[in-house]
């Protein structure tokens, strides 16, 4: 009986190893655009419904009228090989959903923080979060059409980043540019490793 079972198991596909990369930044910084430009699949959306149990620290007075809150997370996928896939998760944009970030960041390889130079302060919470958590991250300065261009160095100073954190100018709509961000992140993670 055991051998019959293992034969069947032998012909089954082994699940690949999946790595998580987070795409963070303020609202409108281009997170979903970036996920879409590098993902091999049309970006998918998963939702977390916040219930009383998951928002236990919230003030629940008047709970009888409270409906559940839904937080959507976009994600995409890149197949590296039969055994290896990279998942890209856009982080939900509001501070009150930070507990969802903990789940996203758990075991994550690292993060790309997208900065919009028109609203640079919007990415401060992301930078703070990954710095505190010790999650490796790089900063992509999304160069929107007509946005005033800043040098990577100016952004680094404005964000008060450690000197070794890579800062790249990027265009979240461009697959090539998105690829370069991910490569820079993985190279940075590998450098920290070695």
């Amino acid at each position, binding site marked *: 009986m055991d051998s019959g079972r293992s034969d069947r198991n032998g012909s089954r596909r082994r699940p690949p190893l999946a790595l998580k990369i987070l795409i963070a930044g303020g609202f409108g910084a281009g997170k979903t655009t970036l996920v879409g430009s590098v993902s091999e699949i049309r970006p998918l959306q998963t939702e977390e419904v916040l219930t009383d149990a998951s928002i236990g620290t919230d003030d629940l007075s008047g709970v009888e009228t409270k409906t559940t809150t839904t937080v959507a997370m976009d994600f995409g996928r890149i197949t590296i090989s039969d055994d290896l896939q*990279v998942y890209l998760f856009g982080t939900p944009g509001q501070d009150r959903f930070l507990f969802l970030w903990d789940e996203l960041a758990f075991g994550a390889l690292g993060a790309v923080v997208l900065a919009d130079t028109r609203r640079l302060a919007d990415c401060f919470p992301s930078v703070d979060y990954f710095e505190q958590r010790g999650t490796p991250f790089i900063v992509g300065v999304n160069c929107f059409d007509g946005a005033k261009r800043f040098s990577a160095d100016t952004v680094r100073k404005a964000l008060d980043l450690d000197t070794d954190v890579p800062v790249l100018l990027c265009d979240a709509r461009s697959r090539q540019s998105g690829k370069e961000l991910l490569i820079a992140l993985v190279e940075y993670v590998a450098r920290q490793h070695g």
Partner: protein
Amino acid sequence: MVRPYTMTGGRVQPGTDNFDLVAFVQASPAQPGADPPPHPEQQAILALVQEPISVAEISAHLDLALGVVRVLLGDLLAAELIETHEPSAAHLPDDDILKAVLHGLRAL
């Protein structure tokens, strides 16, 4: 509108594992004579996991909230209808894997 946790009988925590977003789920080898799971959503999950698929994708494809999917997966796991493969989150992937990722990304 159906309240999302109605189909889990109001439960918001799965019975067992955590089911990471990128944990892979796969149907157990078919057991002759095994009863199909009672809920249509569980049957839909079982149909989807004939090939390994991530928890996040199950949620997206079936348009079910993650928490709901986790409770239903917990039931399926307890009934030994599925197997799960959690990612190793305790330590970073080794250098060979990072090299493979870099190689793959450059080839995109």
